[in-house]
């Protein structure tokens, strides 16, 4: 088990390393000179010596592989460097500033989605082809097929413009969280409910469920104690795989609702060619995904004793 964890961690490190290389290369290929952009696209007059000095300060004059190694070694020390645009502000502080918003949004909506979708999926699976099953199917199909940003726009029109219940964007009060969380919950519910339903149907046909019924247990106990426990396993896997998708979804939702989270920071920094912030974010997010996948697999092995970790 320990050996497995160590091997997976090493594999994860390799992935994060590859991600950092890819990101670094892509960032250096970005058109435009960040220093130029920083100074208002040439509106501020600048001598060539001054420009060279600024380049030297940020290490842009060094060869690429050297720039990469410098960045990597500081990454390993947990130092993400300073933002190019917000001069002197450490990237780590910017990420730490934005992270709580994103974490709050996603954790709350994931809990809500699980709390609604898992019971709904179980019930739909138990009462297959009932009205409730069809309604659940309708919602989960809608969740998969309707882009989150369009639901968000419709929600803004209805709840902010028409009913004036919540603000259309920003986080001046707690009300600003309502629409983004609702939209994210709706998106995440869809797949969860679908997987839960499928898994419930699958387990209900198993021999041990028939045995449980045969020994005269009530249907409720059969479903709750015997079927659902096993049906939850695929859901754990899906949740783990969802992490990467969820982070992608955050980018769009935070942009629409103008929330100061990680996704917004990413898009803004990309637009401003803030190299340091963008490359740090991609690496951090990928590390998060790798870690989430590892935890999912371990959790899976703990929950299901049949799964032997190789």
């Amino acid at each position, binding site marked *: 088990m320990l050996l497995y964890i160590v091997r997976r961690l090493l*594999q994860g490190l*390799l*992935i*994060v390393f*590859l*991600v950092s290389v*890819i*990101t670094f290369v*892509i*960032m250096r*290929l*970005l*058109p*435009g000179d960040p220093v130029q952009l920083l100074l208002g696209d040439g509106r501020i007059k600048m001598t060539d010596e001054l420009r060279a000095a600024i380049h030297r300060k940020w290490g842009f004059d060094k060869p690429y592989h050297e720039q990469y190694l410098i960045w990597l070694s500081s990454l390993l020390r947990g130092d993400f460097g300073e933002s190019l645009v917000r001069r002197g502000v450490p990237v780590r502080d910017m990420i730490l500033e934005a992270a709580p918003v994103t974490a709050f949004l996603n954790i709350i909506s994931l809990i809500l989605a699980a709390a609604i979708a898992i019971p709904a999926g179980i019930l739909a699976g138990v009462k297959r082809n009932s009205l409730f099953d069809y309604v659940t199917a309708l919602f989960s*199909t809608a969740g*998969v*097929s*309707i*882009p989150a*940003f*369009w639901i968000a*726009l*419709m929600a*803004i*029109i209805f709840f*902010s*413009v028409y009913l004036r219940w919540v603000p*259309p964007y920003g986080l001046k009060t707690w009300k600003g969280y309502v629409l983004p969380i609702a939209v994210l919950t709706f998106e995440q519910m869809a797949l969860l409910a679908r997987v839960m339903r499928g898994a419930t149907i699958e387990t209900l046909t198993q021999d041990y469920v028939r045995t449980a019924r045969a020994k005269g247990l009530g249907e409720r106990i059969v479903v709750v104690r015997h079927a659902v426990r096993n049906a939850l396993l695929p859901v754990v896997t899906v949740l783990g795989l969802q992490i*990467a*998708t969820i*982070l*992608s*979804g955050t*980018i*769009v939702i935070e*942009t*629409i609702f103008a929330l100061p989270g990680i996704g917004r920071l*990413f*898009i803004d920094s*990309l637009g401003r060619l803030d190299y340091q912030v*963008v490359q740090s*974010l*991609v690496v951090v*997010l*990928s590390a998060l*995904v*790798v870690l989430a*996948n590892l935890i999912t697999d371990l959790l899976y092995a703990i929950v299901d004793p049949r799964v032997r970790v190789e």
Partner: protein
Amino acid sequence: MAFTITQSLIPNYLVPMAAISTPQTRIIETIENPAARSEWMQAWRRFRANGLAVVGLAVVILLVLVAIFADVLAPYDPSFQFRSMQGAAPSADHWLGSDYNGRDLLSRVLVGTRTALLVGLGATFFQVVIGVLIGAIAGYFGGWTDTICSRIIDTLMSIPVLALLTLLAAVLRDKNLSSLLLIVLVIGFTGWARFARVVRADVLSLRSRDFVIAARSSGVQPMRIIIRHILPNVLGPIIVLASLGIGGIIILESALSFLGLGVRPPTPSWGVILSDGRQYITTYPHIVIWPGLMIVITVLAFNFVGDGVRDALDPKQRAE
């Protein structure tokens, strides 16, 4: 030459027609209708029996026609700005109203269909070609080749899609490429990992099967074995995965265009119309309704077809 020998050496029943049909269904259907012997004919019959899938297919065909004849169908030039029509509500002349610049929304939405379908189908094509190639090579050769390919697949799957896409789109946007082609390539080159993973796993299990060993021992070249003998057997899962993926790609394209990193004006794209409309959402809410509705209809149609294809090719639902 080698190919003909291989075929005659192996009795017919050893060649798996496809791993995608249960023996029972094949026997039953053959008894019922001796003409429907071919796997694909049987799959088509199962597909036809699925109401939602047929409706989806009809809508997809309609959308393809709209995309092809968009210029004829659109009542006006999609980029012509009508004076004093800024943000006009739907009327007899402009059925869906106008956007903030006074452009006819119906024309823009219709021409946007072309963009969406081109990206959806084009990007899927690239994903399939790259994914199948890399997956087959990794699975067939194994060893170091497999390790390297698998690590690349894992890496690609660990970067949040939208982050990678926005990065690449930002890098390539100033190159002299049409933004449409660019988006097709970018989505194609970042999204192939799913296909590679599935194909690799299938090839891994197929390469030790008798018919492959027979082909190899009679001296058939590896690439020929992969293409002629192995790939036909993984065609089912690939088609299922591809048809289920188109809807997601259309959503991705509109999300990218919405963020200003996808298809750029003047090419009308549903995402671009949405992002234009978003700025005036409080004054002219009608602008954002139609392009979004078109996305939903299109994605639903492709998803229904995808579900139908999966059920038809894979009665046991082996693939996820």
